[in-house]
């Protein structure tokens, strides 16, 4: 089974802090994704990556950046955390989203105070 592991289940940070959310997958998938989930808004795409060092903006990239130095790891960075970034963050990987499923991690619940 594909395993997508997010480093923290819960995280509490202060406004202005730089925050790193880490995601690792063990199936050699080319494609990795970061979504945030908020009640009533569904899953919104922040960034995705289709190869090492390659990244594409999703629908809500403002205030975020990403890093993919190795194929198995995709990091989401909040350069200066703000309270409106309090949310559930979900990482996912896929062989090819055109015809293969996304495998999700268990999520990181981030609270910015």
């Amino acid at each position, binding site marked *: 089974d594909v395993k997508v592991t997010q480093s923290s289940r819960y995280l509490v940070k202060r406004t202005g802090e730089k925050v790193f959310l880490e995601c690792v997958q063990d199936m050699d998938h080319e494609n990795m*994704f970061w*979504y945030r989930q908020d009640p*009533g*808004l*569904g*899953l*919104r*795409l922040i960034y*995705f990556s289709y190869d090492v060092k390659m990244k*594409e903006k*999703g*629908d809500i990239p403002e205030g975020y950046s990403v890093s993919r130095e190795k194929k198995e790891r995709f990091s989401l960075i909040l350069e200066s955390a703000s309270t409106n970034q309090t949310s559930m963050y*979900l990482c996912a990987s*896929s062989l090819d*989203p*055109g*015809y*293969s*499923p*996304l*495998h*999700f*991690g*268990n*999520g990181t619940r981030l609270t910015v105070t």
Partner: protein
Amino acid sequence: QQPVQSPQAVILREGEDAVINCSSSKALYSVHWYRQKHGEAPVFLMILLKGGEQKGHEKISASFNEKKQQSSLYLTASQLSYSGTYFCGSNTGKLIFGQGTTLQVKP
């Protein structure tokens, strides 16, 4: 632009049927369907790859009308285990999800 799902919420009795619709404003290459239970990660149900294609998963099936840029998920003879939030994902070059449909099945 997120695809639009309808209804937003539905309550069923065990054994009843439900349909969840997903509509995109952009051309679709494929459509994904996932179910998420409270506190858990979304779980894959199925992908539809071609216009008009229907796929099935136990008593859950789906259709995809490429021309209308729409997909529908059909849940027949619902079970308590079907409760959760259902998301469609539209693949338009990037995978964008709808806002979700909450389904509650009561005994």
